[in-house]
């Protein structure tokens, strides 16, 4: 009798979640990011020397090397070089002219990648850290024809210069710099290699020393010191040098930036130029832009910046006389600007991007070859804010005497990387999202307000609720004109469109949630979960000094107000979720925990709990980890964790009662000496340990994630082979029950209330351990509105750059061991326990996308019960909608509106056609006699 019901239950439990082919690229979204590109490691390069098509290569501040297609901004390939102990800003990337590889260096590794597909060509490790890296443009007999060698300058205990073979990655010669000077840069002319080292004098000044080397043998030809006198006190005022330009130069300024000194490397005289001021605003930054090709004209541009304006001056080098002369200057323009250098044959072009304008000039004369007004950049900026260009790279096509096309990849002060083609933006990449440190889901205030009104009606007495409802409906009539005018659009959307087409408000399913992301540079960016490729708003929340971090965390997002706490003076900021504005003072509310609640926090390696408002100061309990143990992580049960049923209904209609305490936390500790990890389930009110487990032989360098939800917990670790377990990665799932006897509540039988403080009942824990194919770096659980939908365990797999959604039925600790499940257990969807779980490719939420370095996943319920919104951030940004028990309350993509209408229409036609036939037949049967 209850077979159909059982079947329905089984269907709910066995729901294999999968990515449907028709939803795969539409409901999920992904920003494949690189991070903020650095000026000196970003360039256009042709991956295939025989073709003219070029890609944009960059090594970002996040230590990711990648290539981007300039046509649409799509990522072609990327390799992450991130490493904990290497500062991300010390990286180099070079592409030799006509080479099919790009060479990069970070830390003490120099690596060459295939420019077209990003595969490794060779890699070498040097004992010291890489200080500079250049591609030797000149060719000699010792190298493979067509392949250019690389010169690497390293620091460390024995600073040295290496020449590395471009084809094999084998070092050809090494020259050690052994006189205690600091290696600074390496440069090459057509005949010599120059190492620029810094010599610290006794007075603390810096002297620039140039060592010239023979490129074939690596022997020293010459060594001399430049007369920089006392003006050079720190390396900050040395301006980087265009390395392989026809005539390499080194330039520096004094500390006050009033004099510019230029030296042509290889000569000893230093040219000196005065730097002018602009309306009493001193120059704050000087940059140098020179062509990188040996056969181009020896011209360069110096870019001056003050607080309010910027300008450029073009200099020519007379190679015969070894003289530097100023050729012309480009006018001062308010605001920041970016200059970029491009070459075409021997000619050099400078492209200037400033507020509202793009201009290209030839290095030979100041006449503009092309000038375009800059259209709207398509970047959301806050009121009163201007998206300023920070740096740019350009590619210029020249036809005859004029510039026919110019493409510039510009990095903006908002953290976006955009491509401008002749003044109109082509694509935008929000690279600042690669540094997202905290994110939260929020509902727009309008949606929240409506939900509150409905709640008001539900909780007041019937009469006042009725009056409230009538007044609300009368108020709704005011919106009639708006509704009527949007009606045709709505009908059209209903017929052909999807839910994602509607705006933030009027969202019936709750898919349009605002996702606010706080980024490393002090900005907050908001995305719409159902329309994610359009950024809702972006705002500089805090002005940070260079090198300062602000550790933002979102505290709450109730009532559509985002509350952000950050480390700069432990301040709190509030934003309106849908606009990013600071809410009016009336809306600001300070949320204080009510008196009597127990708060717990980590202090100096121990866990401490305090009672809010209690007179006696001091902790009510402390959790001290055992000797040699340190606390790895603490995961409390989520605040919003609705549970639909207090028990688990078994196949024979009996019930196992879940151990549901709102005050649970899972604590993980590690012991570095014994290489063990312990997990404790704590009652956070009493501090009692409800369950503890220890695993030995654990790799403590590998990630150890854990999660806790409802009455179950999960954690993962990587372990060494032992007698009872093979080497590999493990996932452990534990479920807590009040008792393991069905229909019995154990010690809680007959009790209505129970307290954690008075003789708390301990849970009965069922545990299952599984071996998984790869390491898991983060665990999370889906959330739905009422918790009726079965939950899904989300796991981030860093090795395959993916996120899997594991159905709970697969890891259920009630899976029978050593025997096949009984008929009743089969009805529940339980299968026989196996020690191994293979991740089904259909569980991969990211399917074919590759999500790099995800540090956290957040989930949020939609308005409909079946669906949970998922958002993952870290380096990449990924989000999707999940229906762990399929979309039972919404017509999904599988419902074909057109087919339904066509069927109705066909039936109607059939009725009209067949109707007369039947009537005729009926008449005939009465009147016709055979």
């Amino acid at each position, binding site marked *: 009798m209850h077979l159909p019901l059982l079947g329905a239950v089984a269907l709910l439990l066995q729901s294999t979640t999968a990515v449907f082919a028709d939803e*795969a690229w539409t409901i999920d979204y992904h920003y494949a990011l690189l991070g903020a590109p650095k000026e000196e490691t970003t360039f256009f390069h042709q991956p295939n020397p025989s073709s003219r098509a070029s890609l944009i290569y960059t090594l970002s501040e996040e230590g990711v090397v990648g290539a981007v297609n300039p046509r649409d901004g799509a990522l072609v390939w990327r390799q992450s070089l991130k490493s904990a102990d290497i500062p991300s800003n010390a990286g180099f990337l070079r592409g030799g002219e006509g080479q099919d590889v790009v060479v990069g260096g970070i830390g003490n590794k120099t690596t060459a990648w295939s420019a077209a*597909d990003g*595969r490794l060509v060779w890699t070498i490790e040097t004992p010291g850290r890489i200080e500079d890296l250049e591609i030797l443009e000149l060719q000699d007999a010792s190298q493979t024809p067509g392949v250019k060698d690389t010169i690497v300058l390293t620091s460390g205990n024995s600073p040295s210069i290496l020449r590395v073979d471009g084809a094999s990655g084998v070092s050809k010669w090494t020259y050690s710099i052994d006189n205690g000077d600091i290696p600074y840069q390496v440069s090459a002319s057509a005949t010599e290699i120059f190492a620029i080292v810094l010599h610290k004098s006794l007075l603390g000044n810096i002297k620039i020393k140039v060592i010239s080397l023979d490129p074939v043998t690596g022997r020293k030809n010459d060594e001399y010191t430049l007369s920089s006198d006392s003006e050079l006190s720190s390396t900050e005022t040395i301006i980087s040098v265009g390395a392989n330009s026809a005539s390499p130069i080194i330039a520096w300024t004094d500390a006050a930036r009033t004099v510019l000194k230029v030296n042509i490397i290889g000569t000893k005289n230093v040219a000196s130029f005065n730097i002018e001021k602009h309306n009493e605003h001193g120059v704050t930054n000087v940059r140098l832009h020179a062509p990188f090709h040996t056969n181009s004209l020896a011209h360069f541009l110096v870019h001056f910046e003050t607080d309010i304006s910027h300008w450029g001056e073009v200099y020519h080098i007379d190679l015969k006389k070894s003289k530097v002369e100023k050729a012309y200057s480009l006018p001062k323009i308010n605001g920041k600007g970016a200059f970029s250098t491009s070459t075409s044959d021997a000619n050099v072009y400078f492209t200037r991007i400033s507020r509202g304008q793009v201009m290209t000039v030839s290095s030979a004369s100041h006449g503009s070859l092309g000038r375009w007004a800059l259209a709207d950049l398509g970047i959301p900026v806050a009121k009163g804010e201007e998206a300023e260009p920070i740096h740019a790279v350009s590619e210029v096509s020249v036809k005859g005497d004029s510039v026919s096309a110019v493409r510039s990849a510009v990095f903006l002060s908002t953290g976006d990387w955009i491509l401008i083609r002749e003044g109109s933006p082509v694509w935008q990449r929000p690279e600042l999202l690669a540094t997202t440190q905290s994110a939260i889901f929020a509902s727009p205030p309008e949606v929240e307000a409506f939900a509150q009104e409905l709640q008001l009606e539900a909780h007041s007495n019937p009469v006042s609720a009725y009056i409230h409802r009538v007044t609300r409906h009368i108020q709704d009539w005011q919106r009639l004109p708006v509704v009527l005018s949007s009606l045709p659009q709505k009908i059209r959307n209903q017929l052909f469109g999807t839910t994602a087409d509607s705006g933030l408000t009027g969202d019936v399913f709750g898919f349009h949630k605002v996702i606010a992301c706080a980024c490393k540079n002090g900005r907050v960016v908001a995305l719409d979960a159902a329309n994610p490729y359009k950024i809702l708003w972006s705002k500089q929340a805090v002005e940070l000094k260079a090198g300062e971090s602000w550790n933002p965390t979102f505290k709450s997002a109730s009532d559509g107000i985002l509350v952000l706490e950050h480390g700069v003076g432990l301040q709190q900021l509030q934003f309106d979720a849908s606009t990013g504005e600071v809410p009016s003072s009336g809306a600001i509310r300070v949320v204080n925990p009510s008196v009597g609640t127990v708060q717990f926090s980590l202090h100096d390696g121990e866990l401490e709990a305090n009672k809010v408002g209690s007179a006696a100061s001091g902790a009510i309990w402390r959790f001290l980890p055992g000797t040699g143990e340190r606390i790895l992580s603490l995961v409390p049960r989520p605040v919003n964790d609705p549970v639909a049923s207090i028990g688990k209904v078994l196949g024979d209609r009996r019930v196992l009662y879940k151990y549901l305490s709102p005050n649970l936390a899972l604590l993980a500790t590690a012991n570095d000496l014994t290489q063990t990890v312990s997990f404790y389930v704590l009652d956070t009110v009493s501090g009692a340990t409800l369950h503890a487990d220890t695993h030995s032989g654990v790799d403590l360098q590998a990630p150890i994630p854990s999660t806790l939800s409802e009455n179950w917990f999960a954690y993962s670790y990587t372990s060494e082979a032992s007698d009872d377990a093979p*080497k590999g990665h493990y996932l452990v799932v534990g479920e807590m029950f009040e008792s393991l006897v069905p229909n019995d509540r154990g010690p809680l039988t007959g009790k209505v209330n129970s307290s954690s403080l008075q003789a708390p009942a301990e849970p009965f824990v069922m545990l299952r351990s599984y071996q998984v194919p790869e390491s898991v770096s983060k665990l999370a659980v889906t959330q739905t509105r009422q918790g009726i939908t079965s939950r899904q365990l989300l796991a981030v797999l860093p090795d395959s750059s993916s996120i899997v959604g594991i159905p709970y039925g697969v890891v259920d600790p009630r899976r029978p061991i050593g025997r096949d499940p009984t008929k009743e257990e089969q009805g529940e969807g339980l299968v026989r326990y196996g020690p*191994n779980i293979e991740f089904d490719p*259909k569980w991969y939420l990211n399917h074919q996308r*590759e999500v790099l370095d995800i540090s956290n996943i957040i989930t949020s319920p939609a308005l409909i019960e079946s669906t949970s919104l998922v958002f993952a951030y870290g380096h990449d940004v990924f989000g999707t909608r999940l229906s762990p028990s399929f979309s039972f309350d919404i017509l999904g993509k599988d419902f074909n509106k057109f087919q339904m209408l066509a069927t109705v229409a066909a039936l109607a036609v059939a009725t009209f056609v067949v109707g007369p036939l039947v009537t005729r037949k009926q008449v005939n049967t009465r009147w016709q006699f055979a």
Partner: protein
Amino acid sequence: MLAPKSLLLLAGAALSSAARLVVSIPSSQLLPNPSTLPSSTHAILLGPPGVRYDAPIRRDNTFVFNDIPDASYLLTLQSRDHFFPPLRVDVTKAPEEAAQTISAWQTFRGNEWSNKGPSYGTGKGDLIIAVNPIAQKDFYMVRGGFNLLSFFKNPMILMALGSGVLIFGMPYIMDNMDPEAKAEFEEMQKKSPLMGSQGAANQLQNFDLASWMAGRSAPAEGSGSAPSGGGGKKK
């Protein structure tokens, strides 16, 4: 990638070690052209706690691990579109020998570490092994959508269509037949066991439940009233 502490631990071993493992991916049935593997494909050599090497794919479809210290390793290959089998790699050094011995076997998740599968090879100081993918990742679930062809393949639909053709087509065929053939046809139908007044179908239609209940063995000859439209036409 390598923790400083374990680096120290291994430093002694690493000084003398020059063990080199090359994993190559040959062309196979599942992967006819290994050069199509994305550049994110990489191999992970997981050693004792804290030891882990990661090698990206090279241009020649290989992964190279240099200077591997003595230990027992788990080798996994990660690729966007393919699954590769997990391997166990042992690097050992006999005291009297100069070079390390590297051996590789297939291993099985959820089994003892000592449970080794087929050997992939053994080498002195240097080992090159070839690994083939075991499966292609199939990420997408295809909905059982509406398909006109499969709709018409359904036997029920075919039967319905067949009977539809008979109902609508028969009268026309009968009308267009010349009278002689028609008469002959009707005669034939009457004789057929299924049709006609003696036919099984007719008998079933005119089954007299009351008389059967009353115990009469067979209906009397001609007791069933002839249907007005004629058997053939009605059918």
